[in-house]
């Protein structure tokens, strides 16, 4: 009886939240000169999922997510993001897609010459239908979400590493993206701050039902956020599974990430 109830539950769940694919890559390839970075990547990423990407430094993780926003164009294979084939987009359509994707850069990529407020206002430049008051309210809300309300008129150089990461996150979230791409969000932070950031990532996903792809070396972060993990090795996906599955993997190389 309980099993049946559970089945029904799952079926209705599936009806209400169809597992639609938001990113699909098939035989994706990319090289820089002779350096073959992505050799044959095949993944489907579902709506609302938190996918963690592991891999040694230089294995092409950043290149992979940069392909998803068209910062780097792939050589071969197909890449479909939010039902749009990235090969066929003109610059207007590409910009429309980009507005639905948030990208948190490894370095934070805050605009050094602008204040915190101007940093947050920058993604809203094109939102012509929004009044000034609405924009201000949105900026204040975004800062409150990451606990940085007091810094609104400071310059990014006056912020600490953790604050910069949180500001980067706030700036990325201000357009309420459907897909979030995090490039090493906790690298270079102390354990407490990186735990805060990890929890923030989870919170964001729950609040806005975003799909997230998180590149990280930080296993405590992966443990908190991951629904599914993939491991990169020499341009292909060498392993895939949940945190527990990979932690108990028979492959010594995969296990070595968890030590």
């Amino acid at each position, binding site marked *: 009886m309980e099993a049946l109830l559970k089945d029904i539950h799952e079926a209705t769940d599936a009806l209400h939240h169809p597992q639609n694919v938001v990113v699909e890559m098939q035989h994706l390839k990319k090289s820089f000169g002779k350096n073959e970075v992505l050799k044959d990547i095949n993944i489907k990423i579902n709506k609302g999922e938190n996918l963690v990407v592991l891999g040694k430094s230089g294995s092409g993780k950043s290149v992979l997510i940069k392909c998803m926003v068209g910062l780097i164009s792939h050589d071969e294979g197909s890449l479909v993001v939010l039902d749009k084939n990235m090969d066929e987009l003109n610059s207007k359509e590409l910009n429309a897609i980009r507005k639905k994707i948030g990208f948190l*850069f490894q370095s934070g990529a805050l605009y050094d010459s602008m204040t915190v407020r101007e940093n947050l206002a920058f*993604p809203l430049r094109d939102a012509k239908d929004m009044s000034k008051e609405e924009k201000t309210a949105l900026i204040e809300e975004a800062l409150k979400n990451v606990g940085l309300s007091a810094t609104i008129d400071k310059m990014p150089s006056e912020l600490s590493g953790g604050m910069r990461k949180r500001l980067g996150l706030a700036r990325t979230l201000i357009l309420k993206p459907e897909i979030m791409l995090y490039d090493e969000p906790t690298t270079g932070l102390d354990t407490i701050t990186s735990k805060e950031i990890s929890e923030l990532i989870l919170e964001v996903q729950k609040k806005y039902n975003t799909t997230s792809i998180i590149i990280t070396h930080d296993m405590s972060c992966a443990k908190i956020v991951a629904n599914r993990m993939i491991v990169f090795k020499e341009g292909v996906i060498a392993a895939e599974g949940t945190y527990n599955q990979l932690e108990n993997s028979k492959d010594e190389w995969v296990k070595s990430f968890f030590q």
Partner: protein
Amino acid sequence: MKNLVTQLSSIEIKAKESLTKIPLKLEVHYNFIQNFFTDVARVAIFTGRFFKETISPPYEVNELLKQCYFIGYKSLPLVGITGFIMGLVFTIQSRPTLAEFGAESWLPSMISVSIVREIGPVITALICAGKIGSGIGAELASMKVTEQIDAMEVSGTNPFKYIIVTRVVAATIMLPVLTVFNDVISMFGSFAGVNLKGDVSFYLYFAQAFAHLDFLDVVPSLAKTFFFGLAIGLIACYKGYNATNGTEGVGKAANSSVVVASLMVFVIDIIAVQITSLFY
């Protein structure tokens, strides 16, 4: 017999080594030439893209005004001080030579003609190649290596329009303005220089200074300053926008912006002089 074999094989190894060395040397030259031409081609493409993006809307007017303020207004003190000193020193240095010919009264007109035609534009351009070129080069390079330009692009703003077009256009507009400013201040410097020995009234000095200036002095020399500004802006933006290799690349970009921009100032100057000489 054994000896012979080892000898032969050692000869063979040497031959192979020298064979592999020859193409290597060739390759170095080949790479240098190839790099030079790919660089030239890329600058040409960059310039083409600049014109295309400048013409097509939307226009980043606010950012352009801001850059005019930074590039133009903020350079006024430096340009003014150098202009004054240049006029002063030039006058003091020229006086003995003219005095030998008994032509001291020509001093104002000689100085004003040489300043307006040549020295003012070139000195201003060189100062700007240093100040603006290194500023833009370093700023863009650091934006590039810290991924700020990528961040702009993914947030749906065209970084080429927002960052590059505004700076290059601002440099192109502001260089002539700065040159005129420099020319005027130089003449005041020269007026001060004339008055160090002897006494020339303000009115007389400027009447003489402008007496020998005509259309063919002013217009071509101002026209070339537009090209100086364009070249300085384009080169600095190109170097900064294409910076790589982290913080090391920032210094490199700033440095080569200044070097190449200064060189280009002279190249444009010589072309401009050839063209204006056609009209004399």
